[in-house]
Protein backbone atom coordinates (compact mmCIF):
# COMPACT_ATOMS: atom_id res chain seq x y z
CA UNK A 1 0.00 0.00 0.00
CA UNK A 2 2.63 2.49 1.08
CA UNK A 3 4.83 1.47 -1.79
CA UNK A 4 2.13 1.97 -4.38
CA UNK A 5 1.15 5.29 -2.82
CA UNK A 6 4.75 6.49 -2.93
CA UNK A 7 4.98 5.31 -6.50
CA UNK A 8 1.81 7.21 -7.37
CA UNK A 9 3.13 10.38 -5.69
CA UNK A 10 6.40 10.04 -7.60
CA UNK A 11 4.61 9.63 -10.91
CA UNK A 12 2.45 12.66 -10.21
CA UNK A 13 5.56 14.69 -9.40
CA UNK A 14 7.17 13.73 -12.68
CA UNK A 15 4.05 14.63 -14.62
CA UNK A 16 3.96 17.97 -12.79
CA UNK A 17 7.56 18.82 -13.75
CA UNK A 18 6.91 17.92 -17.37
CA UNK A 19 3.74 20.04 -17.52
CA UNK A 20 5.50 22.96 -15.83
CA UNK A 21 8.27 22.89 -18.42
CA UNK A 22 5.76 22.70 -21.27
CA UNK A 23 3.81 25.51 -19.64
CA UNK A 24 6.78 27.87 -19.45
CA UNK A 25 7.73 27.04 -23.03
CA UNK A 26 4.19 27.55 -24.33
CA UNK A 27 3.90 30.90 -22.57
CA UNK A 28 6.52 32.35 -24.90
CA UNK A 29 4.35 31.94 -28.00
CA UNK A 30 1.21 33.92 -28.71
CA UNK A 31 -0.82 31.00 -30.03
CA UNK A 32 -0.17 28.61 -27.20
CA UNK A 33 0.17 31.09 -24.34
CA UNK A 34 -3.28 30.82 -22.81
CA UNK A 35 -3.36 27.04 -22.91
CA UNK A 36 0.14 26.92 -21.51
CA UNK A 37 -0.89 29.04 -18.55
CA UNK A 38 -3.67 26.57 -17.82
CA UNK A 39 -1.21 23.72 -18.17
CA UNK A 40 1.13 25.29 -15.63
CA UNK A 41 -1.79 25.80 -13.25
CA UNK A 42 -2.75 22.15 -13.69
CA UNK A 43 0.84 21.13 -12.99
CA UNK A 44 0.77 23.14 -9.79
CA UNK A 45 -2.45 21.43 -8.72
CA UNK A 46 -0.94 18.02 -9.48
CA UNK A 47 2.17 18.84 -7.48
CA UNK A 48 0.06 19.78 -4.46
CA UNK A 49 -2.05 16.62 -4.75
CA UNK A 50 1.10 14.51 -5.11
CA UNK A 51 2.58 16.04 -1.99
CA UNK A 52 -0.61 15.60 0.04
CA UNK A 53 -0.69 11.91 -0.94
CA UNK A 54 2.93 11.62 0.13
CA UNK A 55 2.77 13.37 3.48
CA UNK A 56 -0.68 12.26 4.72
CA UNK A 57 -1.51 15.33 6.81
CA UNK A 58 -3.11 14.63 10.17
CA UNK A 59 -6.39 16.35 11.16
CA UNK A 60 -4.67 19.30 12.87
CA UNK A 61 -2.49 19.86 9.83
CA UNK A 62 -5.57 19.71 7.57
CA UNK A 63 -7.22 22.39 9.66
CA UNK A 64 -4.29 24.79 9.26
CA UNK A 65 -3.92 23.92 5.59
CA UNK A 66 -7.58 24.79 5.10
CA UNK A 67 -7.18 28.10 6.94
CA UNK A 68 -4.08 29.10 4.95
CA UNK A 69 -5.46 28.02 1.57
CA UNK A 70 -8.84 29.64 2.05
CA UNK A 71 -7.44 33.02 3.07
CA UNK A 72 -4.64 33.14 0.50
CA UNK A 73 -6.67 31.67 -2.32
CA UNK A 74 -9.66 33.91 -1.75
CA UNK A 75 -7.48 37.02 -1.52
CA UNK A 76 -5.75 36.02 -4.75
CA UNK A 77 -9.07 35.45 -6.48
CA UNK A 78 -10.39 38.84 -5.43
CA UNK A 79 -7.20 40.70 -6.35
CA UNK A 80 -7.02 39.03 -9.76
CA UNK A 81 -10.65 39.91 -10.52
CA UNK A 82 -10.62 43.47 -9.25
CA UNK A 83 -7.32 44.86 -10.41
CA UNK A 84 -7.54 47.05 -13.53
CA UNK A 85 -5.46 46.14 -16.57
CA UNK A 86 -3.49 49.35 -16.21
CA UNK A 87 -2.17 48.23 -12.84
CA UNK A 88 -0.87 44.88 -14.07
CA UNK A 89 2.84 45.54 -13.47
CA UNK A 90 2.39 46.52 -9.85
CA UNK A 91 0.07 43.55 -9.33
CA UNK A 92 2.70 41.15 -10.61
CA UNK A 93 5.20 42.83 -8.27
CA UNK A 94 2.83 42.35 -5.32
CA UNK A 95 2.22 38.66 -6.09
CA UNK A 96 5.92 38.14 -6.53
CA UNK A 97 6.70 39.76 -3.19
CA UNK A 98 4.24 37.40 -1.50
CA UNK A 99 5.94 34.40 -3.07
CA UNK A 100 9.24 35.60 -1.61
CA UNK A 101 7.57 36.13 1.77
CA UNK A 102 6.28 32.54 1.72
CA UNK A 103 9.79 31.13 1.22
CA UNK A 104 11.10 33.45 3.92
CA UNK A 105 8.47 32.30 6.42
CA UNK A 106 9.17 28.62 5.77
CA UNK A 107 12.88 29.11 6.32
CA UNK A 108 12.32 31.19 9.47
CA UNK A 109 9.91 28.57 10.80
CA UNK A 110 12.37 25.74 10.29
CA UNK A 111 15.22 27.81 11.74
CA UNK A 112 13.27 28.70 14.88
CA UNK A 113 11.60 25.44 15.74
CA UNK A 114 12.81 22.59 13.64
CA UNK A 115 16.56 23.04 13.22
CA UNK A 116 17.58 20.57 15.94
CA UNK A 117 18.46 17.73 13.63
CA UNK A 118 19.08 19.83 10.50
CA UNK A 119 22.29 19.10 8.64
CA UNK A 120 24.67 21.71 7.32
CA UNK A 121 22.98 21.62 3.89
CA UNK A 122 19.61 22.46 5.37
CA UNK A 123 21.18 25.23 7.48
CA UNK A 124 22.93 26.81 4.51
CA UNK A 125 19.68 26.49 2.55
CA UNK A 126 17.86 28.28 5.34
CA UNK A 127 20.31 31.17 5.10
CA UNK A 128 19.91 31.36 1.31
CA UNK A 129 16.14 31.10 1.50
CA UNK A 130 15.87 33.82 4.15
CA UNK A 131 18.25 36.11 2.26
CA UNK A 132 16.67 35.75 -1.18
CA UNK A 133 13.12 35.60 0.18
CA UNK A 134 13.52 38.83 2.16
CA UNK A 135 15.14 40.68 -0.77
CA UNK A 136 12.37 39.50 -3.08
CA UNK A 137 9.68 40.62 -0.69
CA UNK A 138 10.98 44.07 0.20
CA UNK A 139 12.23 44.77 -3.33
CA UNK A 140 8.90 43.79 -4.89
CA UNK A 141 6.93 45.90 -2.45
CA UNK A 142 9.15 48.93 -3.19
CA UNK A 143 8.75 48.28 -6.93
CA UNK A 144 4.98 48.14 -6.51
CA UNK A 145 4.91 51.33 -4.45
CA UNK A 146 7.01 53.16 -7.03
CA UNK A 147 4.83 52.02 -9.91
CA UNK A 148 1.73 53.06 -8.00
CA UNK A 149 3.30 56.45 -7.44
CA UNK A 150 3.28 56.00 -3.65
CA UNK A 151 7.06 56.36 -3.53
CA UNK A 152 9.35 58.80 -5.28
CA UNK A 153 13.03 58.36 -5.94
CA UNK A 154 14.69 60.13 -2.99
CA UNK A 155 17.59 62.38 -3.92
CA UNK A 156 20.19 60.68 -1.76
CA UNK A 157 19.64 57.39 -3.55
CA UNK A 158 21.09 58.97 -6.68
CA UNK A 159 24.40 59.78 -5.01
CA UNK A 160 27.34 57.47 -4.50
CA UNK A 161 26.25 57.11 -0.89
CA UNK A 162 23.78 54.38 -1.80
CA UNK A 163 26.54 52.07 -3.02
CA UNK A 164 28.22 52.43 0.36
CA UNK A 165 24.96 51.71 2.18
CA UNK A 166 24.15 48.71 0.02
CA UNK A 167 27.63 47.23 0.24
CA UNK A 168 27.55 47.55 4.05
CA UNK A 169 24.18 45.82 4.12
CA UNK A 170 25.46 43.05 1.85
CA UNK A 171 28.45 42.51 4.14
CA UNK A 172 26.13 42.42 7.16
CA UNK A 173 24.02 39.77 5.42
CA UNK A 174 27.07 37.71 4.55
CA UNK A 175 28.34 37.75 8.14
CA UNK A 176 24.89 36.86 9.47
CA UNK A 177 24.55 34.04 6.92
CA UNK A 178 27.92 32.62 8.00
CA UNK A 179 26.93 32.79 11.67
CA UNK A 180 23.47 31.33 11.15
CA UNK A 181 24.36 27.60 11.00
CA UNK A 182 25.98 27.89 14.44
CA UNK A 183 22.86 29.34 16.05
CA UNK A 184 19.87 28.81 13.71
CA UNK A 185 17.17 30.41 15.87
CA UNK A 186 19.23 33.25 17.31
CA UNK A 187 20.38 36.76 16.59
CA UNK A 188 22.04 35.88 13.27
CA UNK A 189 18.67 34.92 11.79
CA UNK A 190 17.08 38.25 12.68
CA UNK A 191 20.14 40.17 11.47
CA UNK A 192 19.85 38.35 8.17
CA UNK A 193 16.12 39.06 7.88
CA UNK A 194 16.63 42.75 8.64
CA UNK A 195 19.76 43.14 6.51
CA UNK A 196 18.29 41.42 3.47
CA UNK A 197 15.01 43.35 3.73
CA UNK A 198 16.87 46.65 3.87
CA UNK A 199 19.12 45.56 1.03
CA UNK A 200 16.07 44.82 -1.12
CA UNK A 201 14.82 48.34 -0.45
CA UNK A 202 18.24 49.92 -0.94
CA UNK A 203 18.75 48.25 -4.30
CA UNK A 204 15.27 48.88 -5.71
CA UNK A 205 14.64 52.41 -4.46
CA UNK A 206 17.17 54.20 -6.70
CA UNK A 207 15.89 52.60 -9.90
CA UNK A 208 13.84 54.80 -12.19
CA UNK A 209 10.30 54.00 -13.24
CA UNK A 210 11.17 53.08 -16.81
CA UNK A 211 13.52 50.34 -15.64
CA UNK A 212 11.06 48.92 -13.11
CA UNK A 213 9.79 46.11 -15.39
CA UNK A 214 13.31 44.74 -15.65
CA UNK A 215 13.63 44.85 -11.89
CA UNK A 216 10.33 43.04 -11.39
CA UNK A 217 11.43 40.39 -13.85
CA UNK A 218 14.71 39.99 -11.97
CA UNK A 219 12.92 39.80 -8.61
CA UNK A 220 10.68 37.18 -10.18
CA UNK A 221 13.75 35.18 -11.00
CA UNK A 222 14.88 35.60 -7.38
CA UNK A 223 11.61 34.22 -6.06
CA UNK A 224 12.32 31.10 -8.13
CA UNK A 225 15.71 30.85 -6.43
CA UNK A 226 14.05 31.36 -3.05
CA UNK A 227 11.63 28.53 -3.84
CA UNK A 228 14.50 26.24 -4.86
CA UNK A 229 16.30 27.08 -1.61
CA UNK A 230 13.11 26.32 0.33
CA UNK A 231 13.11 23.01 -1.54
CA UNK A 232 16.50 22.20 -0.03
CA UNK A 233 15.23 23.25 3.40
CA UNK A 234 12.24 20.89 3.40
CA UNK A 235 13.86 18.29 1.14
CA UNK A 236 11.50 18.50 -1.81
CA UNK A 237 13.09 17.77 -5.17
CA UNK A 238 10.03 18.88 -7.08
CA UNK A 239 10.34 22.27 -5.43
CA UNK A 240 14.05 22.42 -6.28
CA UNK A 241 13.52 21.64 -9.94
CA UNK A 242 10.54 23.98 -10.34
CA UNK A 243 12.28 26.81 -8.50
CA UNK A 244 15.44 26.37 -10.53
CA UNK A 245 13.46 26.36 -13.76
CA UNK A 246 11.60 29.56 -12.93
CA UNK A 247 14.77 31.19 -11.63
CA UNK A 248 16.70 30.44 -14.83
CA UNK A 249 13.81 31.25 -17.17
CA UNK A 250 13.24 34.51 -15.29
CA UNK A 251 16.86 35.44 -15.81
CA UNK A 252 16.54 34.88 -19.56
CA UNK A 253 13.35 36.93 -19.68
CA UNK A 254 15.11 39.72 -17.80
CA UNK A 255 17.88 39.65 -20.38
CA UNK A 256 15.37 39.70 -23.26
CA UNK A 257 13.64 42.72 -21.72
CA UNK A 258 16.94 44.54 -21.22
CA UNK A 259 17.79 43.98 -24.87
CA UNK A 260 14.41 45.33 -25.94
CA UNK A 261 15.15 48.53 -24.01
CA UNK A 262 18.77 48.69 -25.13
CA UNK A 263 19.88 48.72 -21.50
CA UNK A 264 22.34 46.43 -19.85
CA UNK A 265 21.35 44.71 -16.63
CA UNK A 266 24.33 46.27 -14.87
CA UNK A 267 23.30 49.80 -15.81
CA UNK A 268 19.72 49.11 -14.72
CA UNK A 269 20.83 47.84 -11.34
CA UNK A 270 23.67 50.21 -10.58
CA UNK A 271 23.18 53.16 -12.92
CA UNK A 272 20.39 54.80 -10.96
CA UNK A 273 17.47 56.59 -12.57
CA UNK A 274 18.07 58.11 -15.99
CA UNK A 275 18.44 61.87 -15.80
CA UNK A 276 18.11 64.10 -12.79
CA UNK A 277 14.36 63.99 -12.22
CA UNK A 278 13.83 60.40 -13.29
CA UNK A 279 10.91 58.63 -11.79
CA UNK A 280 8.60 61.61 -11.72
CA UNK A 281 5.39 60.65 -13.42
CA UNK A 282 3.26 62.87 -15.60
CA UNK A 283 3.25 66.63 -15.45
CA UNK A 284 5.89 67.00 -12.78
CA UNK A 285 8.75 68.05 -15.02
CA UNK A 286 9.77 71.56 -15.92
CA UNK A 287 8.58 73.29 -19.03
CA UNK A 288 11.77 75.23 -19.49
CA UNK A 289 13.80 74.71 -22.60
CA UNK A 290 11.02 74.51 -25.14
CA UNK A 291 10.94 77.51 -27.47
CA UNK A 292 9.11 76.54 -30.62
CA UNK A 293 6.01 74.73 -29.47
CA UNK A 294 2.93 74.77 -31.68
CA UNK A 295 -0.27 73.80 -29.98
CA UNK A 296 -3.59 73.17 -31.63
CA UNK A 297 -7.19 72.34 -30.78
CA UNK A 298 -8.88 68.98 -31.25
CA UNK A 299 -10.85 70.58 -34.08
CA UNK A 300 -7.72 71.23 -36.17
CA UNK A 301 -6.48 67.77 -35.39
CA UNK A 302 -9.81 66.28 -36.49
CA UNK A 303 -9.59 68.13 -39.80
CA UNK A 304 -6.18 66.61 -40.47
CA UNK A 305 -7.52 63.16 -39.61
CA UNK A 306 -10.52 63.59 -41.87
CA UNK A 307 -8.26 64.11 -44.88
CA UNK A 308 -5.66 61.48 -44.03
CA UNK A 309 -5.34 58.20 -45.88
CA UNK A 310 -3.08 56.55 -43.41
CA UNK A 311 -3.03 57.16 -39.67
CA UNK A 312 -0.77 55.63 -37.04
CA UNK A 313 -1.49 55.86 -33.32
CA UNK A 314 1.40 55.69 -30.87
CA UNK A 315 -0.03 54.77 -27.48
CA UNK A 316 2.02 55.39 -24.36
CA UNK A 317 1.66 55.47 -20.64
CA UNK A 318 -0.58 58.56 -20.76
CA UNK A 319 -3.18 56.50 -22.60
CA UNK A 320 -3.09 53.89 -19.89
CA UNK A 321 -3.44 56.45 -17.11
CA UNK A 322 -6.40 58.09 -18.81
CA UNK A 323 -8.01 54.65 -19.43
CA UNK A 324 -8.50 55.89 -22.97
CA UNK A 325 -8.04 52.63 -24.85
CA UNK A 326 -11.77 52.25 -25.56
CA UNK A 327 -12.10 55.82 -26.80
CA UNK A 328 -9.09 55.21 -29.03
CA UNK A 329 -10.65 52.06 -30.46
CA UNK A 330 -13.85 53.94 -31.19
CA UNK A 331 -11.96 56.70 -32.98
CA UNK A 332 -10.05 54.13 -35.00
CA UNK A 333 -13.30 52.40 -36.00
CA UNK A 334 -14.80 55.69 -37.10
CA UNK A 335 -11.75 56.49 -39.21
CA UNK A 336 -11.76 53.01 -40.74
CA UNK A 337 -15.39 53.38 -41.72
CA UNK A 338 -14.26 56.55 -43.48
CA UNK A 339 -11.73 54.56 -45.48
CA UNK A 340 -8.66 55.53 -43.47
CA UNK A 341 -5.98 52.90 -42.96
CA UNK A 342 -5.30 52.70 -39.23
CA UNK A 343 -2.53 50.99 -37.34
CA UNK A 344 -0.94 51.20 -33.92
CA UNK A 345 2.79 51.49 -33.36
CA UNK A 346 3.90 49.58 -30.30
CA UNK A 347 7.28 50.35 -28.83
CA UNK A 348 8.75 47.39 -26.94
CA UNK A 349 8.61 49.30 -23.68
CA UNK A 350 5.50 51.40 -24.28
CA UNK A 351 3.54 51.79 -21.09
CA UNK A 352 4.90 50.58 -17.83
CA UNK A 353 6.08 47.19 -18.90
CA UNK A 354 6.95 45.46 -22.15
CA UNK A 355 3.77 44.17 -23.72
CA UNK A 356 1.63 46.38 -21.48
CA UNK A 357 0.15 48.32 -24.40
CA UNK A 358 -0.75 45.14 -26.27
CA UNK A 359 -2.70 43.99 -23.26
CA UNK A 360 -4.52 47.30 -22.88
CA UNK A 361 -5.43 47.59 -26.54
CA UNK A 362 -6.49 43.98 -26.70
CA UNK A 363 -8.84 44.74 -23.84
CA UNK A 364 -10.45 47.38 -26.05
CA UNK A 365 -10.87 44.82 -28.87
CA UNK A 366 -8.22 46.28 -31.12
CA UNK A 367 -7.47 43.58 -33.70
CA UNK A 368 -4.14 41.97 -32.98
CA UNK A 369 -3.02 42.42 -36.61
CA UNK A 370 -3.18 46.22 -36.34
CA UNK A 371 -0.62 46.34 -33.53
CA UNK A 372 2.69 46.74 -35.29
CA UNK A 373 5.96 46.39 -33.51
CA UNK A 374 8.73 48.90 -33.96
CA UNK A 375 10.70 47.11 -36.67
CA UNK A 376 7.59 46.71 -38.81
CA UNK A 377 6.15 50.18 -38.40
CA UNK A 378 9.31 52.31 -38.67
CA UNK A 379 9.68 51.89 -42.47
CA UNK A 380 6.00 52.86 -42.80
CA UNK A 381 6.22 56.30 -41.19
CA UNK A 382 7.45 58.16 -44.31
CA UNK A 383 4.21 57.23 -46.10
CA UNK A 384 2.02 58.03 -43.12
CA UNK A 385 -0.14 61.15 -43.24
CA UNK A 386 -0.94 61.63 -39.58
CA UNK A 387 0.67 60.23 -36.47
CA UNK A 388 -1.08 60.72 -33.16
CA UNK A 389 1.12 60.24 -30.13
CA UNK A 390 -1.00 59.53 -27.07
CA UNK A 391 0.86 60.12 -23.86
CA UNK A 392 4.12 58.64 -25.09
CA UNK A 393 7.30 60.65 -24.80
CA UNK A 394 10.75 59.13 -24.62
CA UNK A 395 9.94 56.32 -27.08
CA UNK A 396 9.34 58.85 -29.87
CA UNK A 397 12.26 61.15 -29.08
CA UNK A 398 14.38 61.58 -32.23
CA UNK A 399 17.38 62.55 -30.07
CA UNK A 400 17.82 58.87 -29.31
CA UNK A 401 18.92 58.56 -32.94
CA UNK A 402 20.54 61.95 -33.63
CA UNK A 403 22.09 63.31 -30.47
CA UNK A 404 24.99 61.36 -29.00
CA UNK A 405 24.93 63.59 -25.90
CA UNK A 406 21.37 62.58 -25.00
CA UNK A 407 20.93 60.05 -22.19
CA UNK A 408 18.53 58.23 -24.49
CA UNK A 409 21.07 57.94 -27.30
CA UNK A 410 21.09 54.44 -28.69
CA UNK A 411 17.65 53.44 -27.48
CA UNK A 412 15.57 52.23 -30.43
CA UNK A 413 12.68 54.66 -30.97
CA UNK A 414 9.61 54.96 -33.15
CA UNK A 415 10.60 57.28 -35.98
CA UNK A 416 7.41 59.30 -36.01
CA UNK A 417 9.32 62.40 -37.10
CA UNK A 418 9.36 60.84 -40.58
CA UNK A 419 5.59 61.22 -40.92
CA UNK A 420 3.96 64.14 -42.69
CA UNK A 421 2.13 65.41 -39.66
CA UNK A 422 2.44 64.59 -35.98
CA UNK A 423 0.01 65.41 -33.18
CA UNK A 424 1.19 64.86 -29.66
CA UNK A 425 -1.59 64.49 -27.11
CA UNK A 426 -0.19 65.23 -23.69
CA UNK A 427 -1.34 66.75 -20.46
CA UNK A 428 1.56 69.18 -20.25
CA UNK A 429 5.08 69.68 -21.50
CA UNK A 430 6.39 67.70 -18.54
CA UNK A 431 9.29 65.40 -19.14
CA UNK A 432 8.98 61.65 -19.50
CA UNK A 433 10.68 59.04 -17.36
CA UNK A 434 14.06 60.01 -18.71
CA UNK A 435 13.52 63.57 -17.46
CA UNK A 436 14.69 65.23 -20.68
CA UNK A 437 13.17 67.41 -23.37
CA UNK A 438 11.81 65.87 -26.53
CA UNK A 439 13.04 67.40 -29.78
CA UNK A 440 9.99 66.02 -31.56
CA UNK A 441 7.73 68.57 -29.86
CA UNK A 442 9.60 71.45 -31.51
CA UNK A 443 9.67 70.07 -35.04
CA UNK A 444 7.76 72.00 -37.69
CA UNK A 445 5.39 69.16 -38.53
CA UNK A 446 4.48 68.60 -34.88
CA UNK A 447 1.56 70.16 -33.05
CA UNK A 448 0.72 69.61 -29.39
CA UNK A 449 -2.85 68.89 -28.34
CA UNK A 450 -2.88 69.54 -24.61
CA UNK A 451 -5.24 67.58 -22.46
CA UNK A 452 -6.08 64.25 -20.93
CA UNK A 453 -5.88 61.51 -23.60
CA UNK A 454 -9.45 60.37 -23.05
CA UNK A 455 -10.90 63.88 -23.17
CA UNK A 456 -8.97 64.71 -26.34
CA UNK A 457 -10.02 61.47 -28.05
CA UNK A 458 -13.66 62.06 -27.18
CA UNK A 459 -13.26 65.61 -28.49
CA UNK A 460 -11.87 64.25 -31.75
CA UNK A 461 -14.75 61.79 -32.01
CA UNK A 462 -17.28 64.59 -31.54
CA UNK A 463 -15.57 66.82 -34.09
CA UNK A 464 -15.34 64.06 -36.68
CA UNK A 465 -18.97 63.11 -36.22
CA UNK A 466 -19.95 66.74 -36.56
CA UNK A 467 -18.09 66.77 -39.88
CA UNK A 468 -20.21 63.84 -41.01
CA UNK A 469 -17.45 61.26 -40.94
CA UNK A 470 -18.86 57.77 -40.70
CA UNK A 471 -22.34 58.74 -41.91
CA UNK A 472 -21.42 58.13 -45.55
CA UNK A 473 -20.87 54.49 -44.79
CA UNK A 474 -24.27 54.12 -43.17
CA UNK A 475 -26.02 55.65 -46.16
CA UNK A 476 -24.18 53.48 -48.66
Amino acid sequence: MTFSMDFLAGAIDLAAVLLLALGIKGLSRVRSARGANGLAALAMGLAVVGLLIEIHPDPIAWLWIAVGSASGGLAGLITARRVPMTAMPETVALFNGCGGMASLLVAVGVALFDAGDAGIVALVSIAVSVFVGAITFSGSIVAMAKLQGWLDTPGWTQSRLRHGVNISLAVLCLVAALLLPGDPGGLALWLLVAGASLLGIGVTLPIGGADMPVVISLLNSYSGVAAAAAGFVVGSQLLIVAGAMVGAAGLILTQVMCTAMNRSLVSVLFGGALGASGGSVGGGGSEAGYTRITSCSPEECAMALEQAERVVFVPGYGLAVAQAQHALRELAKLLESHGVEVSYAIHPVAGRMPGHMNVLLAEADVPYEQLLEMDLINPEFPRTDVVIVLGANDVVNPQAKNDPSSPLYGMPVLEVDQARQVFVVKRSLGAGYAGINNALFEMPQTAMVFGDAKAVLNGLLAELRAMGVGKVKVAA
Partner: protein
Amino acid sequence: MTPLSQSLWVLLLGSLLGLELIGKVPPTLHTPLMSGANAISGITVLASLTLIQQAGSNTALLVLGALSLGFALYNVIGGFLVTDRMLAMFRRKGDSR
Protein backbone atom coordinates in the same frame (compact mmCIF):
# COMPACT_ATOMS: atom_id res chain seq x y z
CA MET B 1 23.80 8.60 -4.72
CA THR B 2 23.38 10.58 -1.52
CA PRO B 3 20.26 12.71 -1.19
CA LEU B 4 22.42 15.86 -1.31
CA SER B 5 24.20 15.10 -4.55
CA GLN B 6 20.91 13.96 -6.01
CA SER B 7 19.35 17.29 -5.05
CA LEU B 8 22.27 19.17 -6.54
CA TRP B 9 21.83 17.26 -9.81
CA VAL B 10 18.17 18.18 -9.78
CA LEU B 11 19.10 21.83 -9.20
CA LEU B 12 21.62 21.80 -12.03
CA LEU B 13 19.36 20.11 -14.56
CA GLY B 14 16.38 22.25 -13.58
CA SER B 15 18.44 25.42 -14.10
CA LEU B 16 19.71 24.24 -17.49
CA LEU B 17 16.17 23.37 -18.55
CA GLY B 18 14.96 26.81 -17.47
CA LEU B 19 17.69 28.49 -19.50
CA GLU B 20 16.67 26.56 -22.61
CA LEU B 21 12.91 26.90 -22.30
CA ILE B 22 12.71 30.53 -23.26
CA GLY B 23 14.50 31.71 -26.35
CA LYS B 24 12.90 34.47 -28.32
CA VAL B 25 9.85 36.05 -26.76
CA PRO B 26 7.68 38.50 -28.69
CA PRO B 27 7.42 41.75 -26.68
CA THR B 28 3.65 41.24 -26.59
CA LEU B 29 4.17 38.35 -24.27
CA HIS B 30 6.76 39.82 -21.92
CA THR B 31 4.23 40.87 -19.31
CA PRO B 32 2.06 37.71 -19.44
CA LEU B 33 5.13 35.47 -19.43
CA MET B 34 6.56 37.29 -16.44
CA SER B 35 3.24 37.01 -14.69
CA GLY B 36 2.91 33.31 -15.51
CA ALA B 37 6.45 32.52 -14.37
CA ASN B 38 5.70 34.48 -11.23
CA ALA B 39 2.67 32.31 -10.53
CA ILE B 40 4.80 29.20 -10.97
CA SER B 41 7.36 30.51 -8.48
CA GLY B 42 4.55 30.25 -5.93
CA ILE B 43 5.30 26.50 -6.05
CA THR B 44 6.79 27.20 -2.67
CA VAL B 45 3.29 26.16 -1.44
CA LEU B 46 4.88 22.71 -1.33
CA ALA B 47 7.34 23.92 1.30
CA SER B 48 4.52 25.53 3.28
CA LEU B 49 2.50 22.29 3.24
CA THR B 50 5.51 20.26 4.34
CA LEU B 51 6.17 22.72 7.15
CA ILE B 52 2.60 22.42 8.41
CA GLN B 53 2.82 18.62 8.32
CA GLN B 54 6.13 18.63 10.20
CA ALA B 55 4.83 21.08 12.81
CA GLY B 56 3.06 18.39 14.81
CA SER B 57 1.43 20.18 17.69
CA ASN B 58 3.72 23.20 17.68
CA THR B 59 1.18 25.98 17.32
CA ALA B 60 3.69 28.70 16.47
CA LEU B 61 5.02 26.61 13.61
CA LEU B 62 1.49 25.80 12.46
CA VAL B 63 0.69 29.51 12.36
CA LEU B 64 3.89 30.28 10.44
CA GLY B 65 3.14 27.47 8.02
CA ALA B 66 -0.43 28.59 7.45
CA LEU B 67 0.71 32.20 6.93
CA SER B 68 3.31 31.06 4.47
CA LEU B 69 0.74 28.89 2.68
CA GLY B 70 -1.56 31.89 2.47
CA PHE B 71 1.11 34.10 0.92
CA ALA B 72 2.19 31.40 -1.51
CA LEU B 73 -1.35 30.59 -2.62
CA TYR B 74 -2.09 34.29 -3.03
CA ASN B 75 0.86 34.31 -5.43
CA VAL B 76 -0.29 31.16 -7.25
CA ILE B 77 -4.03 31.76 -7.58
CA GLY B 78 -3.73 35.48 -8.23
CA GLY B 79 -0.83 34.95 -10.63
CA PHE B 80 -2.50 32.35 -12.82
CA LEU B 81 -5.83 34.18 -12.93
CA VAL B 82 -4.27 37.50 -13.79
CA THR B 83 -2.16 35.88 -16.51
CA ASP B 84 -5.26 34.23 -17.92
CA ARG B 85 -7.08 37.57 -17.90
CA MET B 86 -4.28 39.16 -19.88
CA LEU B 87 -3.98 36.31 -22.37
CA ALA B 88 -7.73 36.09 -22.87
CA MET B 89 -7.47 39.49 -24.50
CA PHE B 90 -5.28 38.37 -27.35
CA ARG B 91 -8.07 37.52 -29.71
CA ARG B 92 -7.66 37.36 -33.43
CA LYS B 93 -9.71 39.26 -35.93
CA GLY B 94 -13.01 37.50 -36.51
CA ASP B 95 -13.16 35.89 -33.10
CA SER B 96 -16.56 36.67 -31.71
CA ARG B 97 -17.05 38.35 -28.44
